[in-house]
């Protein structure tokens, strides 16, 4: 057993877990954050993607104790109260989901992807960047649309803020 201390969605949390406990199970079972899903459990599908120290990683392929000391953001940490995060809003607007199982991982991957491409995204880049996220319902078409729209909305938003600041 080891002590695991994390900052999850802005809150400091700690608990005791077996060393073999995966981060995704710690989030779901110890912290009750069941928005992060376990899909394939073999590092392929990306339903378990969360941000660890600002990087989108697969929480089914990391031990909770490995993450101890890190800052984690899960799907529950994106919205600002009742206001959806722009990526969440775009998935809703463009119907980027059907059953919704892959959606938390898709959105966590998308926010990381948009952050790494401040110059903007094109369709080919979005599709290539979604390599590690599998959706069995949508054919990806509306997911790609949603991510492109969110990328544009967030670029406009940040320009707007820059103007306000100036």
């Amino acid at each position: 057993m080891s002590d695991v201390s994390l900052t999850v969605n802005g809150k400091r949390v700690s608990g005791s877990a077996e060393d073999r406990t995966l981060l995704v199970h710690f989030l779901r079972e110890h912290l009750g954050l069941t928005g992060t899903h376990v899909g394939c459990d073999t590092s392929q599908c990306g339903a378990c993607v969360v941000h660890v120290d600002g990087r989108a990683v697969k929480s089914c392929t990391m031990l909770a104790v490995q993450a101890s000391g890190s800052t984690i953001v899960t799907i529950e940490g994106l919205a600002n109260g009742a206001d959806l995060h722009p990526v969440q809003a775009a998935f809703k607007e463009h119907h980027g989901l059907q059953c919704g199982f892959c959606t938390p991982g898709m959105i966590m991957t998308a926010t990381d992807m948009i952050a790494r491409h401040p110059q903007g995204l094109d369709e080919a880049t979005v599709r290539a960047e979604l390599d590690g996220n599998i959706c069995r319902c949508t054919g990806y078409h509306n997911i790609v649309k949603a991510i492109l729209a969110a990328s544009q909305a967030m670029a406009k938003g940040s320009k707007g803020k820059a103007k306000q600041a100036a």
Partner: protein
Amino acid sequence: MYSVNYHRAASVADAAKLLKGGDAKLLSGGMTLIPAMKTRLASPSDLVDVSRLKELQGVKVSGKTVTIGAATTHYDVSTDEKLKKACPALAHMASLIGDPAVRYKGTIGGSIANNDPAADYPAALLALGATIVTNKREIVADKFFKGLFETALKEGEIITAITFIAPAKAAYQKFRNPASRYAIVGVFVTKGKDGVRAAVTGAGDDGVFRSKEIEAALAKKFDASSLDGLKVSADGLMSDIHASAEYRANLIAVMARRAVAAANA
């Protein structure tokens, strides 16, 4: 996963000490080891985490000499601006590993210590004539990769860095398995001051290897046309559900031509 004891090493020296107890294994990005433990293909008693050690991080470029810390992630290699200038082929190769989430965690040291027969880095390091630096010695790539999942590393030895002289020309081309993103065939070619080197991953029955046929053909002229009509033997190549040995032999010639064309572009 079987029960395991996790240790976070404070230094390479500390990691070496921690490795002595039981059946301990080093943990870096964990992108292969943790899945192997989950399926019980690996069952170490202890894990010694070296992924956070600052002394194992980062890319340094000094003139033509490139040194990459063993715990540098594929993402950090693929996006390093100094490396993109000194040896863009290696940065490009790192960008083709796995998927973005895997590249954020997986490390160069972990990849070569595992020496998966379909991994990308072994081909790159062999073609670059790289030197693998450990806490005990330096090993040239030609003597490091020993076969399927086998390396020259001794019990308790820890890779600390990889170093090489950036060649004048280099490129990597990979025909990837669309599900696993591992190479069905990958060919890394370099043209440096010591001549041409071509290394093949994904295809050999005994893991990564240098192709003497390709190197000989390119020694005359480093041009894709030098490989026209090149027949690669299927002897010693892998056959599996993804591709037959004959198919892989053909792919080696195709990937080699594409790699040389990319290196000259």
